[in-house]
C-alpha cells in the first residue's frame, strides 16, 4: 500500500531515506544528524542504515557545513544539509548568499549547485532565543536560491524529493511546530510541481494566502468564518521563490480579496511582494487592498509572549473582516 498516514517529521525522514537509496551521490550533513538522528529526529536511523560516509556528523560550524557542501556539489555530490535551527543559519549566510546562490551564474551555467539546506523554522514551540525565527524573505530576496516550505506530510515527503532532485540550491524551510502533525502520504503518487501553489480549501468570498506553519491557522480561520457564513479560500503557496503568482491570481480573480499571512515580520516580507504583484495583476478585480498579517518589526519575543506575537485565528479573522468591510 502506497498511502500511509504519517507525521511531517516521519515524511521528511522517509523522503531522505528514499533519496539516499535512489542516488548514491546524495549525502546528509549537519550537526547531530548521525547517532542522535538530529535534534528533531528527522534523520533518525539514517546513519545506521547508510553509514557515516553518507550521513555525516559535521563539526559545529555552519559556514563550514554549507561551504563544504558547495565543494562536494562541485565534485558531483548532492548534499542535503541540516541547519539545526533557523537562528543558526547566519554563520552560513555568507556562504549561501555570496557563493551558493551565484555559482551557477558565475560559471556561465556550466556548474550546477544541487544543494538543499534544510532549516527547521518559525515559532510556537516555547523555545529560547534564535529558535523561532522566520528568515525566509532574507533568502527569497537572493537571486539564485529557491525557497520552499511544506505545510503537510505529503508535501514534506514530495517537496523534499523534488528539492534534492533540483540542480539549483533550495532553501527548505520546515515548519517545526507542525513536525508532529499527521497526514496521508501517497509514496507512489505523481507529485505536483515543486513551485506550484495549491488550493487547500475552496471558497468564494476572499483568499487567504499562506505557507508553512500558517496554512493550518488559515484553514482553521476559514472553518470558523464558514460558521459565520463567509466562504474563505485558502491557498498554500508552498514556494516563496519562485512564487506561483499565476495560481494565486486565479484565486484572487475569483474571490476579489486577498489577505497574505505569515509569521515573519510584515515589513519588507514576502507578503509585501505578493501584495505588490497581485495589486498590479488584479487591480481591476480587487474589491479591497491586499492586507497582510504577520510578525511585528520587533525581535521574536520570549516564549511567554509568542502566543500574542504569532498570528492566530483571531488576527486572521480580523483581517478577513477588514477586507470584507471595504
Amino acid at each position: 500500500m502506497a498511502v500511509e498516514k504519517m507525521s511531517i517529521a516521519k515524511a521528511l525522514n522517509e523522503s531522505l531515506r528514499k533519496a539516499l537509496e535512489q542516488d548514491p551521490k546524495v549525502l546528509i550533513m549537519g550537526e547531530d544528524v548521525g547517532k542522535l538522528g538530529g535534534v528533531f529526529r528527522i534523520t533518525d536511523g539514517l546513519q545506521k542504515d547508510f553509514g557515516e560516509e553518507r550521513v555525516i556528523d559535521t563539526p559545529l560550524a555552519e559556514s563550514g557545513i554549507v561551504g563544504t557542501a558547495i565543494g562536494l556539489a562541485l565534485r558531483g555530490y548532492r548534499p542535503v544539509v541540516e541547519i539545526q535551527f533557523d537562528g543558526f543559519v547566519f554563520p552560513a549566510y555568507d556562504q549561501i548568499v555570496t557563493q551558493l546562490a551565484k555559482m551557477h551564474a558565475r560559471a556561465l551555467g556550466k556548474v550546477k549547485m544541487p544543494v538543499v539546506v534544510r532549516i527547521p523554522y518559525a515559532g510556537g514551540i516555547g523555545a529560547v532565543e534564535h529558535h523561532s525565527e522566520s528568515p525566509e524573505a532574507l533568502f527569497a530576496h537572493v537571486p539564485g536560491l529557491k525557497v520552499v516550505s511544506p505545510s503537510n506530510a505529503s508535501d514534506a515527503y514530495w517537496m523534499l524529493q523534488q528539492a534534492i532532485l533540483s540542480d539549483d540550491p533550495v532553501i527548505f524551510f520546515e515548519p517545526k511546530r507542525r513536525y508532529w502533525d499527521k497526514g496521508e502520504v501517497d509514496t507512489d503518487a505523481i507529485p505536483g510541481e515543486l513551485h506550484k501553489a495549491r488550493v487547500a480549501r475552496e471558497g468564494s468570498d476572499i483568499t487567504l494566502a499562506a505557507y508553512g506553519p500558517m496554512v493550518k491557522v488559515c484553514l482553521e480561520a476559514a472553518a470558523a468564518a464558514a460558521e459565520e457564513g463567509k466562504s474563505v479560500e485558502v491557498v498554500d503557496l508552498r514556494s516563496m521563490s519562485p512564487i506561483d503568482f499565476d495560481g494565486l491570481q486565479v484565486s484572487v480573480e475569483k474571490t476579489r480579496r486577498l489577505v497574505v499571512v505569515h509569521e515573519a515580520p510584515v515589513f519588507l516580507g514576502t507578503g509585501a511582494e505578493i501584495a505588490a504583484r497581485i495589486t498590479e495583476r488584479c487591480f481591476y478585480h480587487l474589491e479591497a487592498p491586499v492586507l497582510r498579517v504577520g510578525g511585528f518589526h520587533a525581535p521574536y519575543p520570549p516564549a511567554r509572549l509568542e502566543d500574542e506575537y504569532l498570528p492566530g485565528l483571531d488576527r486572521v479573522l480580523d483581517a478577513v473582516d477588514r477586507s470584507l468591510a471595504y
Partner: protein
Amino acid sequence: MTVESTAARKPRRSSGTKRAAGAASAAKAPAAKAAATAQNAEPQLVQLLTPEGERVSAADNPDAAEFLSFVEDITTEDLRGLYRDMVLTRRFDGEATALQRQGELGLWASLLGQEAAQIGSGRALRDDDYVFPTYREHGVAWCRGVDPTNLLGMFRGVNHGGWDPNTNNFHLYTIVIGSQTLHATGYAMGVAKDGADSAVIAYFGDGASSQGDVAEAFTFSAVYNSPVVFFCQNNQWAISEPTERQMRVPLYQRAQGFGFPGVRVDGNDVLACLAVTRWALARARAGEGPTLVEAFTYRMGAHTTSDDPTKYRRDEETQAWEAKDPILRLKTYLLASGGADEAFFESLEAESEALGKRVREVVRAMPDPDTMAIFENVYADGHALVDEERAQFAAYLASFEEGH
C-alpha cells in the same frame, strides 16, 4: 611517537611565540592519525588536587610548580569558600532542572559536573574584569554576584537576558555558538586602548571551537595582543558529537598556531582552574596578550533538558567521570586535612536548602511579561514603524474588550 608522548615530557602548555623552539619540535610530530589517538587518550593535565582528594606538590608534578605559585595565598577558609560556591551552584542547577521538569522553565542547560571549571575560573577574576559567557555559565554568574534567579528568566521564556551586563561585568548569555568570543576580543581591544589593566574572559565549549568566529577571535586577539582569556570547557560533548568530531589535536595546542599559549587544566579540580586562570589573567594584565585555557571536564547530565544522551553516550563513560567529581574531591581533602568539620557541611546543607526554596518561590512568582513588551527596546532612539505597529496592535487588543 605520538604527539601526546612528546607533550608529556614538556610543560602542558603549548608554546607561544616566546617558546618557538618547543613549538617547532611539536610541529614535527606525525600528523592526523597519531594526533587523533592523542586526542582520545587521557591527557596530562595541570592538576593540583587529585580525584582522590590529595594536594599535588611541586615535587610530585614539576609541571604544576609554576601554577602552584598562583594559589599560594589560598587559605583553608578560601577552600571552604570554593567548596561552598560549588555546592550552592550545583544545588541551584539541580533546582532549575527540577523546575523545568515541573513545567516552570521551558528549557534548562545544566552545568552538572562543570562546577570546578566555572568556580575556579570565576573566582580568579577581579571585579573590573569582564565576562562573556555562553548559556551554561551559571557558576561563573554566581561568582560575579548575579542573582541566580535572574538567570532563569530566559529559560522560563519571560525575557532574552534578564540582567544588566554592566552591573556585574557579566555579559548576557549567548546562545549562538562562539559569537561571544569575538565580543570578548573586541572588549579586550577596548580595554587595551584605554590603558586599563583589567582583563576579559570568554567562555565557550569544545564544539564551539569549530566555529569560524572562534578562529577569528583567536586571530584578532593575537594580532592586537588583546588582554583576553579564552576559557574553553571541554566537557567532551557537543550535544551528541564527541570532541573527535570537532578536532584532531588536543584543543589547547591550537593556540600555538595563533601565536599565544594554550594550557590544559583538570577542569574538575577547582584549585587548578583557579591557578591556571589567575596565571592567564596575569599575562593579560601584564600586556602579554591572549591565552587559551582548556578545562578538561565532563557534562554529567544531558546537553539540555530537551536532550536524550542515552542515544549517543555510554553509561560506563559517565560512571568513570563520576569518580572525578569536583565537589567530592574537595570535600575529601577538606575532611582529611581538617579544613572543615561536619558542622560546616551541615550548615552548608541548610544554606543549600534555603537557596533551593528561594529559587522555587521566585520562579513560580515570575510574572509573564506585558504583551506590549514586544515593542519595547527595539530601538534606542525610537522608530516610526514600531510606533505604528504598537498603536495598531493596542487598538486590535482593545477591540476585544469592547466587542465582548
